[in-house]
């Protein structure tokens, strides 16, 4: 649903979602998904995401990646938010975080960082990822989704990586929550459930859409420090 307010009048456009919630996770089955694809009757969002397809494969991911969440109550139940988390190489940490949000808050996580390449990029966008552009993150938050911004990769999962300041300009004015993600097993091996620690939302003074680069740099610094502190506590 797209909503905006102007002069006391509400503009509402009811989208055909065919019973699929674009924000809340649901359950589905293979037959329904196939039938819907043949009819062409399934929701797609402007980022290319296909939530019904995500609901179909989610049980397989959840069965593979087990998570244990500290302070799950800090995850947002509704409205837009940005989760800033550490990561190693690739998308394993964001995938574990997506499982955590699905398990604890029943919401879909939109991971920022889909590669801007054919085939793989298209597939990841179908599964909910979004390209790493300031405009894309701003549009995602205006549509009231929960976005995950992974910090720069650290090869051996040695700590919080470099924060993407340019991206965080679009996050100003929204709740920004630091999160630490760590594999449960020895030497960083995911033998036991992944440990996920959710921090307190960061205090940001800048307004939405202010585009203040200094406030974004301060936010980036605070996010990195808080993620590192959470990693150290795990």
């Amino acid at each position, binding site marked *: 649903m797209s909503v905006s307010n102007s002069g006391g009048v509400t*503009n509402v456009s009811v989208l*055909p979602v065919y019973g699929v919630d674009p924000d809340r996770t649901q359950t589905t089955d293979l037959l329904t998904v196939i039938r819907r694809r043949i009819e062409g009757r399934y929701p797609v969002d402007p980022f290319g995401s296909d939530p019904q397809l995500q609901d179909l494969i989610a049980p397989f991911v959840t069965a593979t990646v087990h998570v244990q969440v500290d302070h799950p109550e800090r995850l947002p139940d509704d409205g837009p938010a940005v989760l800033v988390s550490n990561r190693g190489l690739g998308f394993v940490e964001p995938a574990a975080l997506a499982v955590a949000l699905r398990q604890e808050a029943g919401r879909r996580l939109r991971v920022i960082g889909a590669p801007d390449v054919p085939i793989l990029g*298209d597939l990841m966008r179908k599964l909910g990822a979004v390209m790493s*552009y300031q*405009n894309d993150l701003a*549009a995602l938050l205006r549509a009231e989704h929960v976005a995950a911004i992974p910090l720069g990769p650290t090869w051996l999962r040695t700590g919080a990586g470099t924060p993407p300041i340019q991206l965080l300009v679009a996050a100003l004015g929204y709740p920004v929550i630091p999160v630490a993600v760590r594999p449960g097993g020895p030497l960083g091996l995911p033998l036991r459930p992944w440990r996920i620690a959710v921090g307190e939302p960061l205090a940001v003074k800048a307004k939405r859409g202010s585009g203040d680069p200094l406030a974004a740099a301060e936010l980036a610094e605070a996010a990195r420090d808080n993620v590192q502190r959470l990693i150290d506590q795990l």
Partner: protein
Amino acid sequence: MRVLVTGMGGELGTRVAQLLEERSEVREIVGVDFVPPRRRLRRSEFRRVDPRDREKLTDIVTEFAPNAVAHFGVYEPASRVSPRLAAEYTQACTVAALGAAARTGQLERVALRSGLVVYGRGRGRPGVPDETAPVAPTTPYGRTCLEVEALAVDLGRRHGFPVAALRMAHEAGSHVPSPLGRFLRLPVVPVPALADPAFQLLHQEDAARAMVAALLLGVDGPLNVVGPGAASVWQAVRLGGRIPWPVVGPGWRIATRVAELAGAPVPPHILELMTKGRTADGSKALEVLDLGTMRPTQEVCTELFEWAKVTPLRPTLPIAQVGT
């Protein structure tokens, strides 16, 4: 207010004129185009003119001295005319009509038709751009739209009037001539084999309402106007009950040639939409123009396929009695 509607012979230009006729603050409406309006107009005056006849077009505009211009003289390639002619008409109409209107000194505002094509697609460009995203068109039609925007903005700056550039998603409807509509209505539709990009459409009525609102409010700057939500290419084909024909790389050369032979030429901006998608963030336009309920993209897509449905009217009299 005296309003000049360029491109009045198109579906959108005609509808804009109809909507303007309902507004009391609009005293006079004059329209120009190379074909007559598509619906009945009650108090608009239409002048048929080839946009390339700059002298005649300039005379008409100078004589009318409009306060506002709704510039629909931005012709989409392979929609009503060939791509080459569309670019010529657009350039001639923009330079002559806007230039003459600005020189009268009476012009107070301009709203023009542009498209999401100005953002381009491909590496280094955001997937869902808003109005602050850099413009870097990747197709000839995108470059044409950007040139029109640049010219109008430059005129506006020199003569001190606001210019609203409506970057519309592909306008569609059951009766709108459009290369995308013709392509999707083919019985077998070429689609990318290894991708399923998302795109947005804009219903003809919403496009016309946006233009009228932008003109009457005197909006300044670009606005993305899109149908809410999105559809994917494979999905659009199935919504119309058509058969998808998966195509890879060089296969598109054959596919577009076959489509052209079947009566659906595929200009570069349509090929780009089919292979890379085209979406944008339209939240600012919803807020600024206060458009109320808009038709979602998937509904517009479904309506595209309704054009061929003919409902036979049942005669009220036996045929033998007709005309007696």
